[in-house]
């Protein structure tokens, strides 16, 4: 099977049952994406597929051979952090860091959804969406943080959203 991950072509022959998450971690050595629950409940495994955030644990690798996949390793490097990575560092948006790659990939996808004008459950109207902290919390509710770093995560995301606006 052939995959494109972070712009690099990979070949692997995993078992047909392999999830996208296990492909990344166990077959390709991309261990940035984390496994929390393996059932779509925690968001630690969030990656971007063709720019959209998904839970890589609930998807089969074999179904992603034509896709562009971006993981936390593809967003930035220690020398050249992605703005969200830098904001998480600045605002201490973590304690243990286990949920952080998923939080950051999810936030990248989420800010793109906001840019496209997608409403959320807490949006007052389904017309023009106003962006605020309540929107950040609702839109990030698929990413759990066992350390409850939530206030700092919201600060980090708000910073980047405001800088973009």
């Amino acid at each position: 099977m052939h995959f494109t991950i972070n712009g690099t072509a990979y070949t692997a022959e995993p078992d047909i049952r392999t999830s996208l998450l296990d492909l990344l971690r166990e077959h390709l050595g991309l261990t940035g994406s984390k496994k929390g629950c393996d059932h779509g409940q925690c968001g630690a495994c969030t990656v971007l597929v063709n720019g959209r955030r998904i839970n890589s644990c609930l998807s089969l690798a074999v179904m992603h051979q034509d896709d562009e996949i971006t993981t936390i390793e593809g967003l930035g490097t220690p020398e050249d952090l992605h703005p969200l990575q830098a904001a998480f560092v600045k605002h201490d948006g973590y304690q243990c860091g286990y949920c952080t790659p998923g939080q950051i990939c999810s936030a990248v996808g989420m800010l793109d959804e906001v840019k496209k004008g997608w409403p959320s459950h807490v949006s007052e109207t389904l017309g023009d969406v106003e962006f605020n902290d309540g929107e950040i919390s609702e839109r990030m509710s698929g990413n759990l943080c066992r350390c409850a770093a939530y206030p700092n995560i919201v600060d980090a995301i708000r910073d980047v959203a405001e800088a973009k606006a």
Partner: protein
Amino acid sequence: MKTFTYEKPASVEEAVGFVGAGTRFIAGGTNLLDLMKLQVETPDKLVDISRLDLAKIEDTDNGGLLIGALVPNSDLAADTRVREKYEVLSRALLAGASGQLRNKATTGGNLLQRTRCYYFYDPAMACNKRTPGSGCSAIGGYNRILAILGASDSCIATHPGDMPVAMRALDATIITLTPGGDRRRISIHDFYRLPGDTPEIETVLEPGELITHVELPAPVAGKQLYRKVRDRASYAFALVSVAGLVSVENGKIATAQLAFGGLGPMPWRDSRVEEALIGMAPSDEVFAAAADILLADAQGYGSNDFKIPLMKRTLIACLRELTA
């Protein structure tokens, strides 16, 4: 997970050619893979329909919408036509799951998602839906999230979906392709089955029948809402929910379309509730009488008894808002 063979058909016709008892279509995979990991589902063949050309939302000649079975929940919720004319549907979708899941979950898969009954998910426990004839652990067990209407002695599971509740309030039609190559149009009102003594059979679909589209009729006048009551403010399944479309003319309720989630094995609708409202001037007494009709046959099983008063209060609150 049990192993399986994998097929990637290039057309809907080819997809329905793979019929067999152990065959499952896979779309977003967010429900099927979850259940396969637990060996609740053990298909021997997966037919990957995710790349078929069924991801468009089109206008119909009679002013409605034709939604491809593979339209992701996110895209359906964000579609401007849906946001403007079928607000109840956008709202129901946005109240479900998480941003990541909605990006993968499809229209067809959402209709067919299985119950979240705790015992169905646990192969160590008796469950008639998972293993017909083994018994029902939820009757006499933990049943906080389970049914108060439409249940049977075999199964008290609820359909957990939000989108299907809005679809039922909107009188949607499900369009399919049978393995024999026939197109079927099935009203959502006839699509789901009560459990009776075969709770493993949940819809009228034949084995191997593919949902290709869901059609919505032209939008109706009036206010629309979806209200979901749950254990936390986000990212949780409904305890009870209401999808409502109500119009008021000259101080009287002119039209009412109401469907309910969390109550039964299918998104629930009861025409007697709507008949009790139409022609009446809105008041709390009228709303309470309608709720009593809805809940006349409701039965709690212990830990879900609270749903009966919760549903009554929620419906009254929704009707106040819809007629304000």
